[in-house]
């Protein structure tokens, strides 16, 4: 209700708002348990004004539960939800300053696009002329200026989701909730829609909570990502940080490609074969080392690493993925510049070392 959909000319303004770290949405120790045993446990989360935050996790991790609780479609067992500092827990969905874009079947099939968009405004007793102006504006924003008189059945899936987004935007919600809105679309369209959503967010400065199970989607659109697993938050951080510094073994496994090797702590260092790394987390005993494929260094000099045999080389556009069989450690993958693998063949003896490792205690 605070921020309009009117295009905010001065983008600086948004940044200022963001910088001031004003909290738009605060989820506090939210718990909800279903009869099946699934649910969420004591989730706490602050979302800043104008931020696009993504709840990411596999199905059943509780991300949708959190989202639906914010929207008012679920009643949590305990905890609180504050929007602009006010608890909304007692309000039904129609009274909350939130709006939700659903996964599918979003539009009302018996109404034209105009009626779909105008419905909420009519409830708010807006004047006719104003409604039709706002509908026109929002249709322009979602790039469907001519759809007004069509029925949802006459629109493609992507167009329908854009109208659904428009419908929510019109209501100028304090928090916009998106429940896997693009999951029903094909890959190309999904990419386009992500970009558009990002642009619309930039233009409107809306606070958005986005739910997805697609880590690539999360990485590409979010200001911050909340990685969830089994009803708990594993990590809340920016996409960059999540990628570079996954807090837990689970996050390391879930986000991006990652190699895992078993090592051991000895004399204050983490050892893998003859390679040594600093024990920055002060672990002891057995540890897991996680290495991004791009941090793997290949060499034919014996003293520089662990011995291995090239199993397969896949050239993927501008880079190549090389699989290397390491005795005792299994197969690891390395991303190499295309030129660097020209001389490499499967069956070649090779030595592997790492630019950067992340360590986790062995469970």
């Amino acid at each position, binding site marked *: 209700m605070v921020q309009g959909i009117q295009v905010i000319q001065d983008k600086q303004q948004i940044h200022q708002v963001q910088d001031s770290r004003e909290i738009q949405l605060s989820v506090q120790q939210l718990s909800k348990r279903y009869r099946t045993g699934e649910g969420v446990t004591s989730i706490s989360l602050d979302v800043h004004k104008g931020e696009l935050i993504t709840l990411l996790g596999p199905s059943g991790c509780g991300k949708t539960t959190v989202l639906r609780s914010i929207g008012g479609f679920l009643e949590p067992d305990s905890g609180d939800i504050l929007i602009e500092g006010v608890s909304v827990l007692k309000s039904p969905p129609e009274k909350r300053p939130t709006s939700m874009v659903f996964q599918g079947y979003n539009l009302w099939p018996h109404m034209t696009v105009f009626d779909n968009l105008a419905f909420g405004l009519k*409830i708010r007793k807006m004047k006719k002329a104003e409604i039709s102006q706002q509908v026109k504006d929002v249709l322009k924003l979602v790039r469907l200026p001519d759809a007004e008189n069509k029925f949802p059945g006459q629109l493609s899936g992507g167009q329908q989701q854009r109208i659904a987004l428009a*419908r929510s935007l019109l209501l100028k919600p304090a928090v916009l909730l998106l429940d896997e809105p693009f999951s029903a679309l094909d890959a190309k369209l999904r990419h386009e829609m992500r970009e558009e959503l990002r642009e619309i967010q930039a233009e409107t400065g809306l606070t958005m909570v986005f739910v997805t199970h697609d880590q690539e989607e999360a990485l590409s659109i979010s200001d911050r990502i909340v990685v969830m697993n089994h009803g708990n938050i594993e990590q809340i951080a920016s996409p960059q940080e999540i990628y570079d510094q996954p807090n837990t073994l689970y996050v390391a496994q879930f986000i991006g490609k990652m190699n895992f090797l078993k090592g051991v702590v000895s004399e204050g260092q983490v050892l893998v074969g003859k390679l040594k790394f600093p024990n920055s987390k002060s672990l002891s005993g057995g540890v897991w080392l996680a290495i991004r494929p791009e941090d793997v260094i290949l060499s034919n000099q014996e003293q520089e690493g662990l011995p291995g045999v090239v199993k397969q080389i896949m050239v993927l556009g501008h880079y190549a993925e090389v699989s290397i069989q390491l005795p005792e450690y299994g197969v690891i993958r390395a991303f190499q510049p295309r030129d660097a693998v020209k001389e490499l063949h499967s069956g070649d003896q090779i030595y592997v070392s790492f630019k950067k490792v992340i360590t986790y205690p062995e469970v």
Partner: protein
Amino acid sequence: MMKKQVKMGILGLLMVIPSFLLLFVTVVIPIAVSFKESLTNKEGGIDLSNYKFLFTDKLMRSNIVFSLEVTVISVVIVLIISYALAAYMRFNKGKLVGWIRNMYMIPMFIPSVIATYGLIQLLGNHGWVARWVLLFGGSGIPRIIFDMKGIIIANLWFNIPFTTMLLGSALAGIPDSVMESAKDVGAGKLRIFTRFIVPLTYKTLLVAVTFVFMGVIGSFTAPFLLGPNAPQMLGVSMEQIFGVFQEKEQASALAFFTFLLCSFMGYFYIRSMIKEEGARS
């Protein structure tokens, strides 16, 4: 290319012919025959005297009015109750819902004659209900059996299960997200009902109206056993004219008139279907 099209056309025609013939023999011919018969007067000539009788005879006129009255009241009550039941089952969970879901179809499995006698036992002057009312100090119940009320109650019994099933499946076809998104933009319960649930089930509602209307106006067993001696429902009157008075032509006229009433309902149903199609495509 052309040849293939012709072949397909012939195949299509061949596949339609059996059902068309069946329709022709079982429906079109009988209707045509009874229409012709209804135009035959006592002297064997052709005129509208039988229809004139339908609308001028005091008894027949009151029968027609009575039938329409019973039908309209039954349709309205059936739809209200069925819709409420179906909506309750759609939007609620719990033991009561499971209970209703298991029970509401039972009347469909009880033969109509047995059910009708059951109703007489239950609602008759000295029936169970009357006895309970007396037991708890009441002064008896108004006359239900041998009255319009009896026919209507029987019609409820016969029509609610199927109608509820029909509407139930229509309501089940409305995705939760439609209603949630309506709630989300700020619609209250009443508005969701009038602007979403009703419009989205409107077509099925119309089908239900058509079915109940036709079922009730053509009913025989219940009005025969439960209804008053006069006025009569059209089905009972038709039977009496045909079977007892043996006035075949008058019975045909009455049958054809009933057919027209039903066709009238069908017309509205079709018209709304066409409208809908037109709007969609």
